[in-house]
Protein backbone atom coordinates (compact mmCIF):
# COMPACT_ATOMS: atom_id res chain seq x y z
CA UNK A 1 0.00 0.00 0.00
CA UNK A 2 1.23 3.43 -0.84
CA UNK A 3 2.02 5.84 1.95
CA UNK A 4 0.09 8.64 0.29
CA UNK A 5 -2.47 8.13 -2.40
CA UNK A 6 -4.64 10.61 -4.24
CA UNK A 7 -7.51 8.96 -6.06
CA UNK A 8 -9.12 10.96 -8.88
CA UNK A 9 -9.02 14.19 -6.91
CA UNK A 10 -10.88 17.15 -8.33
CA UNK A 11 -10.55 20.47 -6.54
CA UNK A 12 -10.84 24.17 -7.12
CA UNK A 13 -11.99 27.51 -5.85
CA UNK A 14 -15.61 28.59 -6.22
CA UNK A 15 -16.60 28.19 -9.86
CA UNK A 16 -13.06 27.48 -10.95
CA UNK A 17 -11.68 23.97 -11.11
CA UNK A 18 -7.90 23.78 -10.76
CA UNK A 19 -7.42 19.99 -10.60
CA UNK A 20 -9.20 17.38 -12.69
CA UNK A 21 -9.19 13.72 -11.65
CA UNK A 22 -5.62 13.72 -10.43
CA UNK A 23 -4.33 10.38 -9.17
CA UNK A 24 -0.94 10.12 -7.59
CA UNK A 25 0.92 7.90 -5.16
CA UNK A 26 3.99 8.21 -2.97
CA UNK A 27 5.57 5.02 -1.59
CA UNK A 28 7.34 4.91 1.75
CA UNK A 29 10.94 6.04 1.41
CA UNK A 30 10.37 7.58 -1.99
CA UNK A 31 11.01 11.09 -3.21
CA UNK A 32 8.42 12.21 -5.73
CA UNK A 33 8.19 15.44 -7.65
CA UNK A 34 5.21 17.17 -9.18
CA UNK A 35 6.42 19.46 -11.92
CA UNK A 36 4.64 21.67 -14.37
CA UNK A 37 4.28 25.27 -15.49
CA UNK A 38 2.58 28.10 -13.64
CA UNK A 39 -1.12 27.56 -13.26
CA UNK A 40 -0.88 23.79 -13.68
CA UNK A 41 -2.50 23.21 -10.30
CA UNK A 42 0.62 22.27 -8.35
CA UNK A 43 -0.08 24.52 -5.41
CA UNK A 44 -3.73 23.49 -5.35
CA UNK A 45 -2.59 19.89 -5.17
CA UNK A 46 -0.49 20.62 -2.08
CA UNK A 47 -3.33 22.60 -0.53
CA UNK A 48 -5.61 19.62 -0.89
CA UNK A 49 -3.05 17.34 0.75
CA UNK A 50 -2.29 19.71 3.61
CA UNK A 51 -5.94 20.32 4.35
CA UNK A 52 -6.22 23.96 3.33
CA UNK A 53 -8.97 23.20 0.80
CA UNK A 54 -11.14 20.06 0.62
CA UNK A 55 -11.26 17.99 -2.56
CA UNK A 56 -14.53 18.23 -4.49
CA UNK A 57 -14.38 14.62 -5.61
CA UNK A 58 -12.00 11.78 -5.01
CA UNK A 59 -10.13 10.64 -1.97
CA UNK A 60 -6.89 11.34 -0.19
CA UNK A 61 -5.49 8.40 1.73
CA UNK A 62 -2.45 8.55 4.00
CA UNK A 63 -1.20 5.42 5.74
CA UNK A 64 -4.57 3.79 5.21
CA UNK A 65 -6.63 6.66 6.66
CA UNK A 66 -8.73 9.00 4.55
CA UNK A 67 -7.65 12.59 5.10
CA UNK A 68 -9.89 14.17 2.47
CA UNK A 69 -11.32 17.38 3.84
CA UNK A 70 -9.64 17.02 7.23
CA UNK A 71 -8.37 20.32 8.67
CA UNK A 72 -4.70 21.29 8.45
CA UNK A 73 -3.79 20.60 12.07
CA UNK A 74 -5.06 17.01 11.78
CA UNK A 75 -2.99 16.47 8.67
CA UNK A 76 0.11 17.64 10.56
CA UNK A 77 -0.83 15.38 13.46
CA UNK A 78 -0.97 12.43 11.06
CA UNK A 79 2.66 13.04 10.17
CA UNK A 80 2.59 15.21 7.05
CA UNK A 81 4.86 18.23 7.41
CA UNK A 82 4.71 21.17 5.08
CA UNK A 83 7.56 23.44 4.03
CA UNK A 84 5.47 26.27 2.63
CA UNK A 85 6.24 28.40 -0.37
CA UNK A 86 8.41 31.37 0.50
CA UNK A 87 9.60 29.63 3.69
CA UNK A 88 7.11 31.39 5.98
CA UNK A 89 9.25 31.52 9.10
CA UNK A 90 8.27 33.43 12.22
CA UNK A 91 10.71 36.28 11.57
CA UNK A 92 10.64 37.92 14.99
CA UNK A 93 11.04 34.68 16.89
CA UNK A 94 14.47 33.20 17.40
CA UNK A 95 15.79 30.14 15.60
CA UNK A 96 15.20 28.06 18.73
CA UNK A 97 11.63 29.36 19.06
CA UNK A 98 10.90 28.64 15.42
CA UNK A 99 12.09 25.08 15.87
CA UNK A 100 10.05 24.76 19.03
CA UNK A 101 6.95 25.86 17.16
CA UNK A 102 7.63 23.08 14.69
CA UNK A 103 7.09 20.65 17.56
CA UNK A 104 3.84 22.34 18.59
CA UNK A 105 1.55 19.32 18.49
CA UNK A 106 1.59 17.01 21.54
CA UNK A 107 3.17 13.99 19.84
CA UNK A 108 6.03 16.09 18.50
CA UNK A 109 6.39 18.04 21.75
CA UNK A 110 7.15 14.89 23.67
CA UNK A 111 10.07 14.10 21.38
CA UNK A 112 11.25 17.71 21.26
CA UNK A 113 14.80 17.17 22.55
CA UNK A 114 15.45 14.20 20.37
CA UNK A 115 14.14 16.00 17.30
CA UNK A 116 16.22 19.05 18.12
CA UNK A 117 19.38 16.97 18.29
CA UNK A 118 18.55 15.38 15.00
CA UNK A 119 17.95 18.71 13.27
CA UNK A 120 21.08 20.21 14.83
CA UNK A 121 23.13 17.29 13.56
CA UNK A 122 21.68 17.71 10.09
CA UNK A 123 22.09 21.49 9.97
CA UNK A 124 24.93 22.48 12.33
CA UNK A 125 24.68 26.09 11.11
CA UNK A 126 21.27 26.37 12.78
CA UNK A 127 22.56 25.08 16.10
CA UNK A 128 25.10 27.92 16.13
CA UNK A 129 22.39 30.53 15.65
CA UNK A 130 19.85 29.38 18.25
CA UNK A 131 19.30 32.82 19.76
CA UNK A 132 19.31 34.81 16.55
CA UNK A 133 16.03 36.02 15.12
CA UNK A 134 14.84 34.07 12.11
CA UNK A 135 14.39 37.27 10.13
CA UNK A 136 18.08 38.10 10.43
CA UNK A 137 19.33 34.82 8.95
CA UNK A 138 20.76 34.56 5.45
CA UNK A 139 18.56 33.13 2.72
CA UNK A 140 20.23 29.74 2.87
CA UNK A 141 19.94 29.55 6.65
CA UNK A 142 16.29 30.52 6.46
CA UNK A 143 15.75 27.66 4.06
CA UNK A 144 17.47 25.33 6.53
CA UNK A 145 15.26 26.62 9.31
CA UNK A 146 12.10 26.12 7.28
CA UNK A 147 13.09 22.53 6.62
CA UNK A 148 14.27 22.04 10.20
CA UNK A 149 10.98 23.33 11.54
CA UNK A 150 9.12 20.84 9.37
CA UNK A 151 11.34 18.02 10.66
CA UNK A 152 10.58 19.01 14.25
CA UNK A 153 7.01 17.78 13.82
CA UNK A 154 8.40 14.26 13.35
CA UNK A 155 6.88 13.80 9.93
CA UNK A 156 6.42 10.62 7.96
CA UNK A 157 6.13 12.65 4.79
CA UNK A 158 7.47 16.11 3.97
CA UNK A 159 5.77 18.34 1.43
CA UNK A 160 7.90 20.98 -0.24
CA UNK A 161 6.00 23.78 -1.95
CA UNK A 162 8.11 25.43 -4.66
CA UNK A 163 11.27 25.45 -2.55
CA UNK A 164 13.42 27.16 -5.20
CA UNK A 165 10.92 29.96 -5.84
CA UNK A 166 12.59 33.35 -5.83
CA UNK A 167 16.11 32.06 -5.16
CA UNK A 168 19.19 33.07 -7.13
CA UNK A 169 20.58 30.25 -9.30
CA UNK A 170 23.54 29.61 -7.00
CA UNK A 171 21.17 29.38 -4.04
CA UNK A 172 18.98 26.93 -5.91
CA UNK A 173 21.88 24.50 -6.14
CA UNK A 174 22.56 24.82 -2.41
CA UNK A 175 18.91 24.35 -1.64
CA UNK A 176 18.79 21.10 -3.54
CA UNK A 177 21.88 20.01 -1.63
CA UNK A 178 19.97 20.62 1.60
CA UNK A 179 16.99 18.65 0.40
CA UNK A 180 19.31 15.87 -0.71
CA UNK A 181 20.75 15.74 2.82
CA UNK A 182 17.25 15.35 4.24
CA UNK A 183 16.56 12.73 1.61
CA UNK A 184 19.60 10.74 2.69
CA UNK A 185 18.16 10.60 6.20
CA UNK A 186 15.48 8.39 4.74
CA UNK A 187 12.54 10.82 4.77
CA UNK A 188 9.74 10.36 2.29
CA UNK A 189 9.01 13.52 0.34
CA UNK A 190 6.77 15.11 -2.20
CA UNK A 191 8.23 18.14 -3.92
CA UNK A 192 6.25 20.56 -6.04
CA UNK A 193 8.70 22.45 -8.18
CA UNK A 194 9.11 24.51 -11.32
CA UNK A 195 12.82 23.90 -11.63
CA UNK A 196 12.33 20.64 -13.51
CA UNK A 197 15.95 20.06 -14.34
CA UNK A 198 17.23 20.20 -10.77
CA UNK A 199 14.37 18.40 -9.15
CA UNK A 200 14.49 15.47 -11.57
CA UNK A 201 18.09 14.87 -10.48
CA UNK A 202 16.92 14.48 -6.92
CA UNK A 203 13.72 12.44 -6.97
CA UNK A 204 12.86 8.85 -7.84
CA UNK A 205 9.68 9.52 -9.73
CA UNK A 206 7.81 12.52 -11.04
CA UNK A 207 4.42 13.60 -12.31
CA UNK A 208 4.01 16.25 -14.96
CA UNK A 209 0.95 18.37 -14.33
CA UNK A 210 -0.57 20.54 -17.04
CA UNK A 211 -3.73 22.64 -16.74
CA UNK A 212 -4.94 20.59 -13.82
CA UNK A 213 -4.35 17.11 -15.25
CA UNK A 214 -1.53 14.59 -15.01
CA UNK A 215 0.05 14.69 -18.45
CA UNK A 216 2.86 12.22 -17.80
CA UNK A 217 4.36 10.20 -15.01
CA UNK A 218 7.34 7.96 -14.60
CA UNK A 219 10.85 7.44 -13.29
CA UNK A 220 12.72 10.70 -13.02
CA UNK A 221 15.50 9.52 -15.31
CA UNK A 222 13.04 8.41 -17.98
CA UNK A 223 11.07 11.62 -17.79
CA UNK A 224 14.10 13.78 -18.23
CA UNK A 225 14.99 11.77 -21.35
CA UNK A 226 11.60 12.38 -22.96
CA UNK A 227 11.93 14.74 -25.90
CA UNK A 228 8.80 16.56 -24.91
CA UNK A 229 9.95 17.23 -21.38
CA UNK A 230 13.45 18.17 -22.46
CA UNK A 231 12.19 20.75 -24.90
CA UNK A 232 9.43 22.25 -22.85
CA UNK A 233 10.85 22.22 -19.35
CA UNK A 234 14.47 21.29 -19.08
CA UNK A 235 15.56 23.75 -21.67
CA UNK A 236 17.81 21.51 -23.73
Amino acid at each position, binding site marked *: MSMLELRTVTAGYGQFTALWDVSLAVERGEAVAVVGPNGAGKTTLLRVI*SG*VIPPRHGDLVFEGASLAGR*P*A*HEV*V*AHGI*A*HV*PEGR*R*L*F*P*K*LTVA*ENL*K*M*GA*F*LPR*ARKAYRESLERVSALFPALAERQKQRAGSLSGGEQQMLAIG*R*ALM*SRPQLILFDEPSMGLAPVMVLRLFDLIRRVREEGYTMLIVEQNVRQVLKLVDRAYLLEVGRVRMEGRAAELSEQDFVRKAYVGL
Partner: protein
Amino acid sequence: MTVTPARAAGAVLLALIALAPLVPMAGMKQYVLHVVIQIFVWSFIGQAWSLMGRFGLVSLGHGAFLGVGAYAVVLLWNFYGLTPWVGGAAAIALSVVVALVVAYPCSRFGIIGHYFALVTLAVGEVVRLLIIAERDWTGGSLGVTLKAASDASLVAMQYADKRVWYYAGLGLWLFGLWVWARLDRSMARAAMEAIGEDETAAACVGVRVTRFKLRITVLSAALTALGGIAYAQYITYVNPETLAGIGVSLRIVFAVVLGGMYSLLGPTVGTALTIALSEWLRIVFGVKFIGMAETIYGLLLVIFIIFLPAGIYGSLAALVRRRRPAPVPATA
Protein backbone atom coordinates in the same frame (compact mmCIF):
# COMPACT_ATOMS: atom_id res chain seq x y z
CA MET B 1 9.67 29.99 45.56
CA THR B 2 12.96 31.80 45.94
CA VAL B 3 13.05 35.33 47.29
CA THR B 4 14.47 37.64 44.68
CA PRO B 5 14.74 41.42 45.15
CA ALA B 6 12.01 41.92 42.55
CA ARG B 7 9.65 39.54 44.34
CA ALA B 8 10.36 41.11 47.72
CA ALA B 9 9.70 44.57 46.31
CA GLY B 10 6.49 43.30 44.75
CA ALA B 11 5.31 41.82 48.06
CA VAL B 12 6.06 45.05 49.94
CA LEU B 13 4.29 47.11 47.29
CA LEU B 14 1.27 44.83 47.37
CA ALA B 15 1.11 45.07 51.18
CA LEU B 16 1.24 48.88 50.96
CA ILE B 17 -1.54 48.86 48.36
CA ALA B 18 -3.65 46.59 50.52
CA LEU B 19 -3.15 48.78 53.60
CA ALA B 20 -3.67 52.14 51.86
CA PRO B 21 -7.38 52.58 52.80
CA LEU B 22 -6.41 52.34 56.47
CA VAL B 23 -4.11 55.35 56.26
CA PRO B 24 -5.82 58.52 57.53
CA MET B 25 -5.83 61.09 54.73
CA ALA B 26 -8.17 63.66 56.19
CA GLY B 27 -10.49 65.12 53.55
CA MET B 28 -8.52 63.68 50.67
CA LYS B 29 -9.37 60.09 51.43
CA GLN B 30 -12.52 59.68 49.34
CA TYR B 31 -10.88 61.31 46.35
CA VAL B 32 -7.70 59.24 46.56
CA LEU B 33 -9.68 56.03 46.93
CA HIS B 34 -11.85 57.01 43.97
CA VAL B 35 -8.84 57.60 41.72
CA VAL B 36 -7.18 54.35 42.75
CA ILE B 37 -10.39 52.35 42.21
CA GLN B 38 -10.58 53.80 38.71
CA ILE B 39 -6.99 52.79 38.12
CA PHE B 40 -7.70 49.22 39.27
CA VAL B 41 -10.77 48.80 37.09
CA TRP B 42 -9.34 50.42 33.96
CA SER B 43 -6.04 48.56 34.39
CA PHE B 44 -8.02 45.34 34.48
CA ILE B 45 -9.78 46.36 31.27
CA GLY B 46 -6.42 47.26 29.75
CA GLN B 47 -5.06 43.85 30.70
CA ALA B 48 -8.06 42.25 29.04
CA TRP B 49 -7.44 44.25 25.89
CA SER B 50 -3.72 43.41 25.83
CA LEU B 51 -4.51 39.68 25.83
CA MET B 52 -5.45 40.26 22.19
CA GLY B 53 -3.38 43.30 21.38
CA ARG B 54 -0.04 41.72 22.19
CA PHE B 55 -0.63 39.10 19.52
CA GLY B 56 -1.46 41.58 16.80
CA LEU B 57 -5.22 41.30 17.26
CA VAL B 58 -5.61 45.04 17.62
CA SER B 59 -9.16 45.89 18.58
CA LEU B 60 -10.28 49.50 18.41
CA GLY B 61 -13.74 48.57 19.59
CA HIS B 62 -13.43 47.11 23.05
CA GLY B 63 -15.93 49.72 24.15
CA ALA B 64 -18.50 47.40 22.59
CA PHE B 65 -17.84 44.75 25.22
CA LEU B 66 -17.69 47.32 28.01
CA GLY B 67 -21.01 48.79 26.91
CA VAL B 68 -22.73 45.45 26.47
CA GLY B 69 -21.52 44.29 29.88
CA ALA B 70 -22.35 47.47 31.76
CA TYR B 71 -25.75 48.13 30.15
CA ALA B 72 -26.91 44.52 30.37
CA VAL B 73 -26.22 44.32 34.09
CA VAL B 74 -27.76 47.72 34.86
CA LEU B 75 -30.90 47.17 32.76
CA LEU B 76 -31.47 43.68 34.14
CA TRP B 77 -31.36 45.12 37.64
CA ASN B 78 -33.46 48.18 36.91
CA PHE B 79 -36.22 46.40 34.98
CA TYR B 80 -36.25 42.90 36.43
CA GLY B 81 -34.52 43.34 39.76
CA LEU B 82 -32.06 40.66 38.75
CA THR B 83 -29.07 40.57 41.08
CA PRO B 84 -25.85 41.64 39.34
CA TRP B 85 -24.33 38.28 40.21
CA VAL B 86 -26.73 36.62 37.79
CA GLY B 87 -27.16 39.64 35.55
CA GLY B 88 -23.38 39.91 35.33
CA ALA B 89 -23.11 36.34 34.12
CA ALA B 90 -25.76 37.06 31.50
CA ALA B 91 -23.95 40.27 30.51
CA ILE B 92 -20.67 38.42 30.09
CA ALA B 93 -22.39 35.72 28.04
CA LEU B 94 -23.91 38.40 25.83
CA SER B 95 -20.55 40.06 25.25
CA VAL B 96 -19.08 36.66 24.35
CA VAL B 97 -21.83 36.24 21.76
CA VAL B 98 -21.01 39.67 20.33
CA ALA B 99 -17.32 38.75 20.26
CA LEU B 100 -18.03 35.52 18.39
CA VAL B 101 -20.34 37.20 15.90
CA VAL B 102 -17.55 39.64 15.07
CA ALA B 103 -14.51 37.40 15.38
CA TYR B 104 -15.70 34.24 13.65
CA PRO B 105 -16.28 35.77 10.21
CA CYS B 106 -13.10 37.85 10.55
CA SER B 107 -11.08 34.77 11.36
CA ARG B 108 -12.74 32.64 8.71
CA PHE B 109 -12.24 35.12 5.89
CA GLY B 110 -8.78 36.23 6.88
CA ILE B 111 -9.62 39.76 8.02
CA ILE B 112 -6.48 40.53 9.99
CA GLY B 113 -4.21 43.43 10.91
CA HIS B 114 -5.45 46.87 9.92
CA TYR B 115 -8.64 45.47 8.46
CA PHE B 116 -9.50 43.72 11.70
CA ALA B 117 -8.85 46.97 13.59
CA LEU B 118 -11.25 48.81 11.27
CA VAL B 119 -13.97 46.20 11.71
CA THR B 120 -13.72 46.45 15.49
CA LEU B 121 -13.73 50.25 15.29
CA ALA B 122 -17.10 50.01 13.59
CA VAL B 123 -18.41 47.48 16.12
CA GLY B 124 -17.67 49.83 19.01
CA GLU B 125 -19.61 52.59 17.29
CA VAL B 126 -22.52 50.31 16.41
CA VAL B 127 -22.96 49.41 20.07
CA ARG B 128 -22.83 53.07 21.08
CA LEU B 129 -25.39 54.05 18.45
CA LEU B 130 -27.66 51.16 19.42
CA ILE B 131 -27.58 52.30 23.02
CA ILE B 132 -28.51 55.84 21.96
CA ALA B 133 -31.21 54.63 19.58
CA GLU B 134 -32.92 52.37 22.12
CA ARG B 135 -33.59 55.31 24.39
CA ASP B 136 -36.80 53.91 25.83
CA TRP B 137 -34.96 51.56 28.05
CA THR B 138 -31.31 52.65 27.78
CA GLY B 139 -31.97 56.31 28.46
CA GLY B 140 -30.32 57.24 25.14
CA SER B 141 -27.38 59.59 25.31
CA LEU B 142 -28.39 60.78 28.76
CA GLY B 143 -27.45 57.43 30.18
CA VAL B 144 -29.20 55.56 32.92
CA THR B 145 -28.75 55.47 36.66
CA LEU B 146 -28.58 52.21 38.53
CA LYS B 147 -31.64 51.94 40.78
CA ALA B 148 -30.44 52.22 44.34
CA ALA B 149 -30.95 49.23 46.57
CA SER B 150 -32.57 49.94 49.93
CA ASP B 151 -29.20 49.68 51.62
CA ALA B 152 -25.67 48.58 50.94
CA SER B 153 -25.92 44.94 50.10
CA LEU B 154 -24.09 42.03 48.62
CA VAL B 155 -27.12 40.94 46.58
CA ALA B 156 -27.39 44.30 44.81
CA MET B 157 -23.60 44.67 44.62
CA GLN B 158 -24.01 48.26 45.77
CA TYR B 159 -21.84 49.88 48.39
CA ALA B 160 -21.51 53.52 49.27
CA ASP B 161 -18.34 52.79 51.21
CA LYS B 162 -15.43 53.28 48.84
CA ARG B 163 -13.25 50.93 50.87
CA VAL B 164 -15.36 47.99 49.73
CA TRP B 165 -14.83 48.99 46.12
CA TYR B 166 -11.17 49.56 46.74
CA TYR B 167 -10.70 45.94 47.77
CA ALA B 168 -13.04 44.67 45.07
CA GLY B 169 -11.02 46.65 42.52
CA LEU B 170 -7.79 45.33 43.95
CA GLY B 171 -9.12 41.78 43.67
CA LEU B 172 -10.19 42.37 40.07
CA TRP B 173 -6.80 43.81 39.17
CA LEU B 174 -4.95 40.88 40.76
CA PHE B 175 -7.25 38.49 38.92
CA GLY B 176 -6.34 40.24 35.65
CA LEU B 177 -2.64 39.89 36.44
CA TRP B 178 -3.13 36.22 37.20
CA VAL B 179 -4.92 35.57 33.89
CA TRP B 180 -2.24 37.46 32.02
CA ALA B 181 0.58 35.55 33.71
CA ARG B 182 -1.11 32.20 33.20
CA LEU B 183 -1.61 32.82 29.53
CA ASP B 184 1.98 34.00 29.29
CA ARG B 185 3.24 30.61 30.46
CA SER B 186 0.87 28.50 28.37
CA MET B 187 1.14 26.86 24.99
CA ALA B 188 -1.61 29.20 23.86
CA ARG B 189 0.89 32.01 24.06
CA ALA B 190 3.29 30.21 21.73
CA ALA B 191 0.41 29.48 19.38
CA MET B 192 -0.83 33.06 19.46
CA GLU B 193 2.65 34.45 18.91
CA ALA B 194 3.01 32.24 15.86
CA ILE B 195 -0.40 33.32 14.58
CA GLY B 196 0.50 36.96 15.14
CA GLU B 197 3.63 36.51 13.07
CA ASP B 198 2.22 34.52 10.18
CA GLU B 199 -1.08 32.67 10.12
CA THR B 200 -0.15 30.45 7.20
CA ALA B 201 3.06 29.37 8.87
CA ALA B 202 1.22 28.72 12.13
CA ALA B 203 -1.30 26.51 10.32
CA CYS B 204 1.60 24.66 8.71
CA VAL B 205 2.97 23.55 12.07
CA GLY B 206 -0.44 22.38 13.20
CA VAL B 207 -1.78 25.38 15.13
CA ARG B 208 -5.57 25.62 14.95
CA VAL B 209 -5.55 29.23 13.93
CA THR B 210 -9.29 29.99 14.04
CA ARG B 211 -9.83 28.22 17.32
CA PHE B 212 -6.97 29.97 19.14
CA LYS B 213 -7.99 33.37 17.82
CA LEU B 214 -11.59 32.86 18.86
CA ARG B 215 -10.60 31.65 22.30
CA ILE B 216 -8.38 34.61 23.02
CA THR B 217 -11.00 37.01 21.66
CA VAL B 218 -13.72 35.47 23.81
CA LEU B 219 -11.49 35.62 26.89
CA SER B 220 -10.61 39.24 26.22
CA ALA B 221 -14.24 40.22 25.58
CA ALA B 222 -15.52 38.42 28.67
CA LEU B 223 -12.96 40.09 30.93
CA THR B 224 -13.65 43.48 29.36
CA ALA B 225 -17.36 43.01 30.01
CA LEU B 226 -16.53 42.08 33.59
CA GLY B 227 -14.60 45.34 33.88
CA GLY B 228 -17.60 47.21 32.48
CA ILE B 229 -19.87 45.55 35.02
CA ALA B 230 -17.58 46.46 37.89
CA TYR B 231 -17.35 50.04 36.66
CA ALA B 232 -21.13 50.36 36.28
CA GLN B 233 -21.77 48.94 39.76
CA TYR B 234 -19.22 51.29 41.28
CA ILE B 235 -20.26 54.49 39.51
CA THR B 236 -23.97 53.44 39.52
CA TYR B 237 -24.50 55.32 36.29
CA VAL B 238 -23.88 54.27 32.71
CA ASN B 239 -23.55 56.50 29.69
CA PRO B 240 -22.90 55.59 26.05
CA GLU B 241 -20.00 58.03 25.75
CA THR B 242 -18.03 56.66 28.68
CA LEU B 243 -18.75 52.97 28.12
CA ALA B 244 -19.06 52.43 24.37
CA GLY B 245 -17.88 53.87 21.10
CA ILE B 246 -14.61 55.14 19.74
CA GLY B 247 -13.65 57.42 22.61
CA VAL B 248 -13.40 54.88 25.38
CA SER B 249 -12.12 52.18 23.02
CA LEU B 250 -9.19 54.34 22.03
CA ARG B 251 -8.52 55.37 25.62
CA ILE B 252 -8.08 51.73 26.57
CA VAL B 253 -5.70 51.17 23.67
CA PHE B 254 -3.80 54.32 24.45
CA ALA B 255 -3.23 53.45 28.08
CA VAL B 256 -1.96 50.00 27.18
CA VAL B 257 0.30 51.21 24.39
CA LEU B 258 1.69 53.87 26.71
CA GLY B 259 2.49 51.40 29.48
CA GLY B 260 3.45 48.50 27.24
CA MET B 261 1.28 45.68 26.01
CA TYR B 262 3.95 43.00 26.12
CA SER B 263 4.60 43.10 29.84
CA LEU B 264 2.61 42.09 32.88
CA LEU B 265 2.47 45.53 34.49
CA GLY B 266 2.46 47.57 31.29
CA PRO B 267 -1.33 48.09 31.14
CA THR B 268 -1.37 49.11 34.81
CA VAL B 269 1.43 51.63 34.46
CA GLY B 270 -0.16 53.10 31.35
CA THR B 271 -3.61 53.33 32.94
CA ALA B 272 -2.25 54.91 36.11
CA LEU B 273 -0.39 57.52 34.08
CA THR B 274 -3.33 58.40 31.84
CA ILE B 275 -5.75 58.67 34.74
CA ALA B 276 -3.25 60.74 36.72
CA LEU B 277 -2.73 62.95 33.67
CA SER B 278 -6.41 63.57 33.10
CA GLU B 279 -7.02 64.23 36.80
CA TRP B 280 -4.13 66.68 36.86
CA LEU B 281 -5.34 68.48 33.75
CA ARG B 282 -8.81 68.64 35.19
CA ILE B 283 -7.57 70.16 38.43
CA VAL B 284 -5.16 72.61 36.83
CA PHE B 285 -7.30 73.78 33.91
CA GLY B 286 -10.76 72.97 35.21
CA VAL B 287 -13.24 73.40 32.38
CA LYS B 288 -11.16 75.99 30.59
CA PHE B 289 -9.42 73.71 28.13
CA ILE B 290 -11.95 71.10 27.22
CA GLY B 291 -10.30 68.54 25.01
CA MET B 292 -6.83 69.34 26.31
CA ALA B 293 -6.41 65.88 27.81
CA GLU B 294 -7.36 64.26 24.50
CA THR B 295 -4.95 66.48 22.61
CA ILE B 296 -2.09 65.56 24.91
CA TYR B 297 -3.05 61.87 24.71
CA GLY B 298 -3.01 62.03 20.94
CA LEU B 299 0.39 63.66 20.79
CA LEU B 300 1.87 61.23 23.29
CA LEU B 301 0.37 58.27 21.44
CA VAL B 302 2.08 59.25 18.20
CA ILE B 303 5.38 59.80 20.00
CA PHE B 304 5.15 56.47 21.79
CA ILE B 305 4.22 54.36 18.83
CA ILE B 306 7.19 55.77 16.94
CA PHE B 307 9.85 55.85 19.66
CA LEU B 308 8.80 53.42 22.40
CA PRO B 309 6.70 50.70 20.83
CA ALA B 310 7.14 48.48 23.89
CA GLY B 311 5.72 51.24 26.11
CA ILE B 312 7.15 52.95 29.18
CA TYR B 313 7.10 49.95 31.47
CA GLY B 314 8.01 47.49 28.71
CA SER B 315 11.03 49.54 27.66
CA LEU B 316 12.25 50.01 31.24
CA ALA B 317 11.83 46.31 31.95
CA ALA B 318 13.76 45.46 28.80
CA LEU B 319 16.53 47.86 29.81
CA VAL B 320 16.80 46.18 33.20
CA ARG B 321 16.73 42.66 31.82
CA ARG B 322 18.50 42.96 28.49
CA ARG B 323 18.29 39.22 28.22
CA ARG B 324 15.62 39.00 25.59
CA PRO B 325 15.01 41.87 23.20
CA ALA B 326 11.62 43.50 23.68
CA PRO B 327 9.31 42.27 20.97
CA VAL B 328 8.37 44.76 18.30
CA PRO B 329 4.62 45.14 17.88
CA ALA B 330 2.78 44.26 14.72
CA THR B 331 2.37 47.35 12.59
CA ALA B 332 -1.36 47.52 13.11
